[in-house]
């Protein structure tokens, strides 16, 4: 039973960026409208295969994130379906007003792909961490915020976004994750996936932290605690029914995210206090800029690890 991030990483892991690109290439084969827009980020977005197959449909504006999102909106105006892909930290912070105005307020069919969010670029330091993006993006009206947890779901999300006529922010990480969703799973915005039934406490995770929450569920089971484990693929919209049921049927909710806890944690808290007050614990990055260090070290450091999550659940149950 893995208790640290290092131990989690011992299973077969996938880089979801590979899936995102493979899916985009596949879609682009049959849908001429699909274009990719980047900020000198072909490599970090792993868009090499797309560039090779469709060189003219890759629009590289250089290191210019405002232009990148604006050009994306213009391409949408011109009938294209643009996937704008850049490191999450620069995409969201540098082009914030373009995301607000050109994507969300304009309700363009425009997919914003934030690559390697959270602390995936751990050693590069807080300038390259994207821990604020979930809190920021969910505070933009009209934007769907998606954090897939494994390759299968990533592929489904990219397909869904290609067909969804509206602005979407998708987080895709370079950090390895195992296969998680079961056969026959279908992604839908606002629909949680139950990974473990349980009646004592509920763990709600998203993206790269889902595997850690599952492991925490096992640790808790070994300690006699029957934890429910949910994956919440859309931070916005939430699966309100699943969360309200969890608040009613278990002692409380522990949210888990590779982000400031005002992301998923804050979103769930805002739902519960209004509809069904219940105790919560937040596992994520506290209100601080992280240190430099590997993402594995940082995740463990902040307790975004199986034992950190289990401890948070035990703390909730003990009060």
């Amino acid at each position, binding site marked *: 039973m893995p208790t640290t991030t290092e131990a989690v990483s011992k299973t077969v892991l996938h880089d979801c960026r590979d899936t995102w690109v493979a899916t985009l290439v596949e879609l682009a084969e049959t849908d001429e409208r699909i274009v990719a827009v980047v900020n000198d980020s072909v490599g970090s977005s792993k868009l090499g295969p797309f560039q090779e197959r469709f060189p003219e449909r890759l629009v590289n504006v250089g290191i210019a994130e405002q*232009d990148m999102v604006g050009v994306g909106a*213009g391409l949408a105006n*011109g009938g294209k379906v643009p996937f704008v892909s850049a490191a999450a930290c620069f995409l969201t912070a540098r082009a914030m007003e373009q995301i607000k105005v050109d994507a969300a307020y304009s309700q363009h069919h425009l997919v914003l792909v934030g690559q390697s969010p959270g602390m995936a670029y751990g050693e590069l330091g807080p300038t390259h961490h994207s821990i604020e993006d979930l809190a920021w993006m969910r505070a933009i009206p009209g934007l769907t915020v998606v954090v897939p947890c494994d390759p299968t779901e990533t592929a489904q999300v990219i397909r869904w976004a290609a067909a969804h006529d509206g602005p979407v922010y998708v987080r895709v990480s370079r950090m390895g994750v195992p296969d998680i969703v079961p056969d026959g799973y279908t992604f839908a915005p606002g629909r949680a996936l139950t990974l473990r039934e349980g009646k004592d406490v509920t763990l709600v995770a998203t993206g790269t932290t889902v595997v850690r929450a599952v492991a925490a569920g096992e640790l808790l089971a070994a300690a006699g605690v029957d934890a429910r484990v949910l994956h919440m693929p859309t931070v916005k919209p939430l699966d309100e029914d699943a969360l309200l049921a969890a608040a009613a049927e278990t002692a409380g909710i522990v949210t888990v995210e590779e982000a400031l806890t005002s992301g998923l944690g804050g979103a769930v808290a805002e739902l519960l206090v209004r509809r069904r007050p219940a105790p919560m614990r937040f596992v994520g990055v506290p209100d601080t800029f992280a240190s430099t260090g590997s993402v594995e070290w940082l995740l463990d450091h902040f307790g975004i690890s199986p034992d950190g999550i289990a401890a948070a659940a035990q703390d909730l149950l003990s009060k």
Partner: protein
Amino acid sequence: MPTEEDLVPRVDPEAVPSDTLTVLGRVPAGATREEAVAHLREAARLVRRRDIQMIRASGLGHVGGEFSVIDILITLYLDAMNMSPELLGDPDRDRFILSKGHAAAALYTTLAIAGFLPPEQLGTFMQPLSQLNGHPARTKIAAVEASTGPLGHGLPVAVGTAFAGQLDGSPRRTFVVTGDGELQEGSNWEALMTAGNHRLSHLCVVVDRNRLQQGARVADTNDLEPLADKLRAFNLEVVEVDGHDHGALLDVFANVPAASGKPTAVIAHTIKGHPISFMSDNVAWHHKVPSAEQVAQALAELEA
């Protein structure tokens, strides 16, 4: 101590006598150049009349920058562009983006006189739930290609639109009007670099060069000169024109692309508040709202 702008009463729109704008439509096919210019001149006059009445009625607006850009808008919509209400569904129609979105009333009145909007709708300008926001919204008016208002957004979007056209081999041209103060925004230089290097020849950037911004002269804030050199160094073909001369504007727009493989930059020399005597080249009129007497005087000057 509220400023003058704060003291302007929010008057009841019903109480303000307003023209009902006549839908003039495009310059008729086969018109001589003289006829065309006369048509545009009359349209611009009617649009300025309606515009200042809207500003007075809503108690807000940017009349200075509206009066400087109206001749450009009128020339584009009523003649130069391949764009009309019937063409809205045509992907090959020309595109227009008003990057200086604060001149929204000028765009709305132009769209009305060109037949894109029912003229009665102008009476709802800035009223609760109106489609006519203080700044144009793409989701609210079919002919608005991009939501603008924050400066420095329209040009990158225009570059994207032009890019799509180039990818599709479409003949359509994309016109975008920016303010001159607006060119202080770095997003524009990012977009110009992209446009120049990607050789977007079907893009035409029109700079409303009225030499004033919100609080002062552009030269006293953060100067743009030498502007033509800047644009040329970003690989655009530069043309200068009197932005109030409909005939000259017609010639310039007819000649876009002005150079093969290059986007065109038109520096349109204009006067903020033109042609109203007490507004012309006067920074106070960036977003000042005229009194009833000032409206009357402006309307009288527009008869002359």
